[in-house]
């Protein structure tokens, strides 16, 4: 099958809005927040121009946006929203309810720092804070991945074995406002890829009355949580399957993780999001100067791909984990904690952590060179004296 590329110069937000137009959700409820604003603005253009027949609900807050999404999804229709940072924080209560009620809502999160001090730029503290809310989390390195992840998210969320909401993360400004060439697929092909939504329940079906969200006390709450954990356990398989099908349909296959020069690497840098793009170049340069560096990019943070991480890190001499958020007073950053937990009892490798880029602080090539060089040194000495490092802080 030959697949012709159809490149458009788009920002990440425009690309995701375009994906939404092609998905054509039945309901979108949203409230603007930087850096998500231009995404929903573009999407509401499509609605206003009649390019998509979505019922667009303009609400008075993110708490209401997610509440409206829960209501819409419970009535058995395809539902989306998008948010960022403080908007996600305001949604909090309902974010949990969406997941626990097993409603397959898809939500791009344009990652931004949480206040205070008030800041509108990229870091991952918004989504990382929601890591235990029961949402699947996909992460994007660039606008193309944000577009592709958004389309795949619909299929993953609606998989009958999963039925969980999905967050599609894209770095605020770096991806959302940066313009790139994005390969846009044919409308009809996207439509047939996501297929028709077959809801499990429909609150408006008067012939089959159901109750959604009833009280669930000591006798059954625990069982429902166990069930939710099961859905999350199935998610990895669904993400894998959808990634392969996506490759077959559009020529871009997606894995749970992506390795770069990983196989023969002595030491590995792990991270997610746009910084991994910069890291590709840094690793190329490191290789030229004789350091056998590689990276492991996580496209999926929830469910956490622990076996895959173990498999790729086994036998490596040192690992550095990049965290674009802090987890104050924990062992270290959130990604670091997951990686070291996954390695516990399986591989005894020195693992170092770098908290970087908070509040949009630019993570330069030279900073990443330092990470690579330091990790190289650890791989040689086998010693790691300082686990927690703040990269680029004065």
């Amino acid at each position, binding site marked *: 099958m030959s697949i012709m590329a159809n490149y458009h110069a788009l920002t990440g937000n425009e690309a995701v809005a375009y994906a939404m137009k092609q998905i054509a959700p039945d309901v979108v409820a949203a409230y603007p927040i930087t850096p998500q604003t231009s995404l929903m603005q573009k999407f509401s253009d499509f609605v206003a121009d009649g390019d998509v027949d979505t019922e667009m609900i303009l609400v008075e807050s993110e708490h209401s946006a997610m509440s409206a999404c829960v209501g819409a999804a419970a009535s058995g229709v395809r539902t989306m929203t998008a948010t960022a940072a403080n908007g996600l924080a305001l949604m909090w209560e309902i974010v949990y309810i969406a997941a626990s*009620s097993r409603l397959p809502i898809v939500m791009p999160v344009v990652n931004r720092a949480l206040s205070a001090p008030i800041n509108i730029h990229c870091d991952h503290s918004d989504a990382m804070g929601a890591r235990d809310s029961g949402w699947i989390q996909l992460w994007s390195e660039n606008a193309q991945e944000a577009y592709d992840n958004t389309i795949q998210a619909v299929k993953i969320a609606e998989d009958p074995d999963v039925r969980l909401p999905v967050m599609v993360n894209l770095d605020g400004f770096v991806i959302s406002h940066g313009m790139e060439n994005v390969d846009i697929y044919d409308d009809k092909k996207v439509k047939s890829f996501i297929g028709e939504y077959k809801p499990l*329940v429909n609150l408006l079906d008067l012939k089959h*009355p159901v*109750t959604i969200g009833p009280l669930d006390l000591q006798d059954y709450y625990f069982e429902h949580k166990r069930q*939710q954990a099961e859905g999350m356990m199935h998610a990895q398989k669904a993400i894998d399957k959808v990634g392969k099908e996506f490759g077959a349909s559009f020529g871009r296959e997606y894995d749970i993780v992506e390795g770069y020069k990983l196989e023969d690497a002595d030491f590995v840098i792990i991270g997610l999001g746009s910084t991994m793009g910069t890291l590709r170049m840094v690793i190329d340069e490191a290789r030229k100067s004789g350091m056998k560096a590689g990276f492991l990019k996580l496209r999926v943070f929830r469910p956490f791909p622990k076996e895959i991480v173990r498999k790729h890190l086994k036998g490596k001499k040192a690992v550095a984990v990049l965290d674009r958020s802090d987890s104050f007073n924990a062992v270290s950053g959130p990604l670091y904690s997951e990686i070291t937990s996954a390695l516990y009892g399986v591989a005894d490798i020195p693992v170092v952590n770098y908290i970087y880029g908070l509040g949009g602080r630019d993570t330069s090539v030279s900073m990443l060179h330092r990470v690579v060089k330091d990790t190289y040194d650890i791989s040689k000495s086998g010693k790691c004296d300082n686990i927690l490092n703040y990269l680029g802080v004065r």
Partner: protein
Amino acid sequence: MTMKKKGWKDITEGNIIDKPATALEYKTGTWKAFRPIWIKENCIQCKFCWLYCPDMAIKMKGDKMTGFDYEYCKGCGICAKICPAKKKAIEMKKETEFEK
């Protein structure tokens, strides 16, 4: 209330109740600390108690109130409060009085 509880594999996802009238299976009678007693001779058959009872604990035969279903009555006392009969037609008694 000796319903056998199901395991996590046998219940609906997301705590969805997928059929109506399941409250029938959930007997709330053991909750009560007070028990309503019907004083038949004072009753004017207005059916306010039936209308206001938050459960389905008022027994009816045709359009006649005929007493309480203690398997469901939670003992909230709303019926006794709302009863407009001149002479008390519902009296709330402590559940402990019936334990002997």
